């Protein structure tokens, strides 16, 4: 599979991924550092105190006001961005209207974001898990690092019902410093563990973004005739006439999605619902637009 659709990259290439919060970094970059004093972005003036570097004195201000003021700058750094993909079996669902399964869709999102982050000079890490951790690539910025992520994305396989608690605990153990955590899942199982993990990451001053990926069938339930539904994770079976239960189903899933959204808002997690039948480029560009407007 061609993970990075040229069309997608064409649409999102002009956007820079801007972190909403301050991140630590070793390398000055586009992202605001929590450290003031060095850097190029002017923040404010403050009264000169003896010992300050004279090169930061603003002589134009002195000429106008006869007061010594030092300029304060904010340092710009790069960031660590970690992308986590849920590879439980339910992510393998692909409806008739969709071109990609949820997992494939999540992979494309991951690839696009990794490419974009890497191009900015930031570090990107990638994690995937089902019953167990399938892939754990810590943040890095080299070109080969990105290639490794792409390679792993191609080998992702849906498995199990998602051992969220254990896997996320292991993944979070490798987290160092602040950054951006991007979680991609359908949230069909283990939503409490996922929210708890994101909440923990948020507590560690990470900027958290949650992509909930759902198929159009799950959102609109467009089935008719008699259907034997088989649960992909629990293998439970039900025979029903979907047209008779559609109204009830839509009400149930609507309430659930609203609950997830409210939970994300409450914990400062940027929530984004993605429908796999929608064009990916449009979704990403719309999301990044929104992110940029926040800064």
């Amino acid at each position, binding site marked *: 599979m061609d993970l990075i659709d040229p069309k997608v990259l064409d649409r999102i290439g002009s956007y820079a991924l801007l972190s909403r919060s301050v991140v630590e970094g070793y390398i000055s970059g586009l992202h605001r550092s929590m450290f003031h004093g060095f850097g190029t972005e002017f923040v404010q003036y403050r009264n000169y105190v003896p010992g300050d570097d004279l090169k930061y004195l603003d002589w134009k201000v002195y000429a106008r006001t006869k007061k010594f003021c030092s300029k304060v700058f904010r340092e710009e750094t790069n960031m660590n961005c970690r992308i986590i993909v849920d590879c439980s079996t339910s992510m393998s669902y692909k409806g008739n209207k969709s071109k990609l399964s949820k997992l494939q869709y999540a992979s494309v999102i991951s690839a696009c974001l990794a490419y974009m982050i890497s191009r900015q000079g930031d570090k990107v890490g990638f994690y995937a898990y089902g019953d167990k951790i399938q892939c754990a690539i810590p943040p890095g910025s080299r070109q080969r690092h990105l290639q490794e992520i792409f390679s792993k994305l191609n080998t992702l396989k849906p498995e199990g019902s998602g051992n969220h608690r254990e896997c996320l605990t292991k993944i979070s153990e490798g987290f160092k410093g602040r950054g951006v955590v991007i979680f991609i899942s359908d949230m*069909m199982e283990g939503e409490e563990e996922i929210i708890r993990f994101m909440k923990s990451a948020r507590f560690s001053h990470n900027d958290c973004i949650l992509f909930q990926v759902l198929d159009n069938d799950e959102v609109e339930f467009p089935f008719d005739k008699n259907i034997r539904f*088989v*649960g*992909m994770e629990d293998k439970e079976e*039900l*025979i*029903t006439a979907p047209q008779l239960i559609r109204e009830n189903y839509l009400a149930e899933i609507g309430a659930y999605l609203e609950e997830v959204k409210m939970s994300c808002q409450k914990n400062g997690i940027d929530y984004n619902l993605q429908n796999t039948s929608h064009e990916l480029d449009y979704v990403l560009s719309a999301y990044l637009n929104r992110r940029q407007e926040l800064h």
Partner: protein
Amino acid sequence: MAFAAPLLLAAMAAIGIPLFLHLMAKDVPKVVHFPSLRFIKKDKLETHSKRGLRDLLLLLMRCLVIAGVVFAFSQPFIKDKTSALNGATRQTVVLLDVSSSMDRKLVLDKIRERLEKEIGEGESVALITSAASRLSRQAFDSRDVFFTQLEKVKFTQEEGHHEESLNDAASFFAKEASAKKLIIVSDFQANDWNFLQTPQVGKDIELKFIRPFDKEIDNVSVLVNKVRRLNEGKVVQVQALVENHTALDKAVDVTFTAGIKTVKETLNLSPREKRRVILTVKDAGVSKAKVFITPDEYPADDLYHVWIGEEAPQVVLYPVEKSQTLDYLFVEKALHVKSADGAFRVAAREPSNFNKLKLEEFHAIILSDSAASLNEADFLRIKSYTEQGGLIIVAPGEKAGIVFSRLKAYGIADVTYVETIRRKSSVDLPFNFSKKIENSPLLKMFKNTPDSDLLNFAIYRYNAFKTGADAKNILSIKAGTPAWSLIPSGKGHVLVSAIPFNHVWSDFTLSNSFLPLLRHSIISLSGGASKSTVNLKVGERKLLAGKEINTAKPGAEVLSEVLLVVNVSRLESSVDTVNLIDFKSQIRASRGTRITVTDDKQSGDEYWHYFMLLAIGALLLEFAIADLFRKKTAQ
């Protein structure tokens, strides 16, 4: 059970359609591996077994609908077990008219006598009785059983209509019979056998018509016009009108019985002749008398005409307000006088109640000044009354301008009020009638009456009026000034008088001419006395003048002590009987065939409507089941 249209049963194959659809629709559920079933509430699920039950019930109902419709159209019936016609070689069907006109003395004996000549030994015979519709249908193995049953036949008081029965009779024969004979026994009144669609009787059926009594005997009627008691009641005299309704010469015995005395007169009547006969019984000394013409031969559906008094009274409507009674008094007095030219009754009614009256019950309406109080609707009703042949006599006084203008405005009569002319002083000569039209039917009575004072009385005031071209001035006051004018209005007439009926305007009401002129005008222009009679069928009972009219036995009863005259006439006799030759050719050649004897349809009770009801019921049940399951699932 058999079917009249068994080929239609092939349509039962249509049951395969819902069956096929059911099997096709009985799909194996498509398997969908769905991410999570947590949002599908299990208690809302339609279970497979529930669906199966619903589908089976719906399938059953749909099959029943189709089966019901197919059965209904196939016309199922159960063969009549009483029918002995099947398989017999010689078959006879007797269609017996049992309508009221057949109910005569010894008629069954006469029928039996005729039928014995027509029905041979060993034949199977069916008897169908018919009046307003088919009453019974029975088949008998032998002629003896048939004749036994024939004696039990009861005649009805219904009018006859035999289309259904003739159809039934024509289709009652078995196909394999070698000889078929249809005998119709009736008096063949044209009304009874006049069909909208004549049934066809196949040429393999021999047709026989039997009229059990002579056609002519019932076609004479008697009407008693007048009853007089002379010589202090010792002599009773009746004047009767005897009418021959037939197209043949008739010799009729008219019998008049009063007490123990009887007078009989034989009349030889030519076709359609009416003749008056006066019969007198001397020393009768009784108060009852009866006139009849061979009364046993009167059929039961004859009509009596009953009225009170020696003469059928003519009823005159006089709209009058209580305050204006002078004109009314003169009119009432004139019409209540007993005379030989007719009986009258004046009905005085308030103009405010005019709209509640049935105008068609009155022979004439007299409009005086009180007519000015009538409203637009009343005048429109008067117009309708004259258009249908009614007579209006208009004699207003002070309010002539209003009355005349309304008559003209509502199109009742083309009459225009000009002015009221008065005698200026006592020196002036009074006006009087100056001219009469000799050929006027109203004035015939004065032609040979030299002592008539029609032209001699004084008129002090009169209303000058003009009439249209179609008016005929019967009397004038002077040239160009009509006094009595007859104006045609629709089928009726409007008689306009220049002077009201009181002594203030003229001496006309005091003259000898007033009474005959008014009475004769009404008699000659009002259209007869039939409106004041009551029609009763023979056998019908009714109280009139406190006495019950006995019509059980036909005849004209004269009860002179209460002036009640009961007459009997033979209205239906004026209707001809059918021409049997034409009738025969008609039912042989009819193209309006509904049932022919070549049909294989057997007799028996039909059940198609039960199957149609079954189909409709199943259809409704199907809707109900579908709706029930839908609602249950939606809950």
